[in-house]
């Protein structure tokens, strides 16, 4: 319980003195900028990692399980498990599936999708002006012509 404040009140410093003292006596901290830049640059996967951590933490709470028990079940160190629940670990698929198995939960799901016939081309060329032109030509060709056209384009691109 805090009962008294022992500050001197007879020697009040003025603003300039305080600023001088702050500037001369404070330690320079450059680390926060590095940490902040790291968090900003890696926000996407750190957010995913945090979501996984929250899911793990709430499952542990629901099951009445400790992080240490989880570490033993996963055959990982408690320090590593702690890093996971702090959302700092860039998890591998292997580790994720191990956790899913031990906790009997689903952490990551790949949405279902359909592979189209020319998916490979669409995936890497779809934004280029040349490909858009090609697409308009394709609409007037038969299938065999389309294949030749795509082949020619790929050769041209590689060359």
């Amino acid at each position, binding site marked *: 319980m805090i009962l008294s404040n022992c*500050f001197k009140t007879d020697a009040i410093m003025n603003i300039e003195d305080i600023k001088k003292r*702050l500037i001369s006596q*404070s330690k320079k901290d450059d680390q926060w900028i590095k940490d902040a830049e790291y968090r900003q640059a890696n926000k996407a996967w750190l957010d995913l990692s945090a979501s996984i951590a929250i899911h793990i933490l709430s499952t542990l709470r629901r099951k009445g399980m400790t992080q240490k028990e989880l570490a033993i079940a996963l055959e990982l160190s408690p320090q590593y498990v702690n890093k996971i629940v702090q959302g700092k670990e860039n998890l591998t698929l292997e580790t994720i599936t191990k956790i899913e198995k031990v906790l009997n939960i689903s952490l990551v799901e790949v949405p279902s999708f359909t592979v189209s016939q020319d998916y490979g081309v669409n995936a890497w060329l779809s934004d280029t002006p040349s490909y858009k032109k090609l697409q308009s030509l394709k609409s007037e060709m038969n299938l065999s012509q389309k294949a030749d056209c795509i082949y020619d384009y790929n050769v041209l691109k590689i060359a």
Partner: protein
Amino acid sequence: MKIIDTFAVLNESLFSVQFEQEVTHEFARLFNIWNDPEYLFDFFNENLTDLQGGFWGDINISEAIQRTRNEASELEAKILAIAKTGQTNHYENLSTLFTPLNNDPCRIESYEKSKTRIRKGSWLRVYAIRVDLNTYVVCGGAIKLTKTMNARNHLKLELEKLEFTKNYLLSESPDAHDFVELF
């Protein structure tokens, strides 16, 4: 309560104190805990009544953690931007980020207790003492789930830290002083 060090976070404008029981200064500590899902999970579980009590609506813990992390990221980005442009652009400085704690825009006192929030409707607060125009000393922060600061212990502690830091700055020999805890 005792301040063991001060740190310059932004050159000659943003400073931060380190309290005795902490491993780092307040500014760094806040962004560490606001990004830590484990800390946030425990915090929101401990304050579940406030979280779901209506002041912010009815928010679940998972949403609250994501919201906190997003707000922290937004605030950090703003301070980073000031760190990079504040030296040359006089309109982009800390004074645009901090406002008086008392919500009275017409009265700015010396050594004003100040707060920053990224926008209206955000619940993260960084608390600081305003020493001068564009000179602030960070002494704490909070996830403010209630309207006032007097109703919750974790917020009352922040008020004490503000007062303590103000006195620390005004004291001629700050190293010689601290609160006395009798029991």
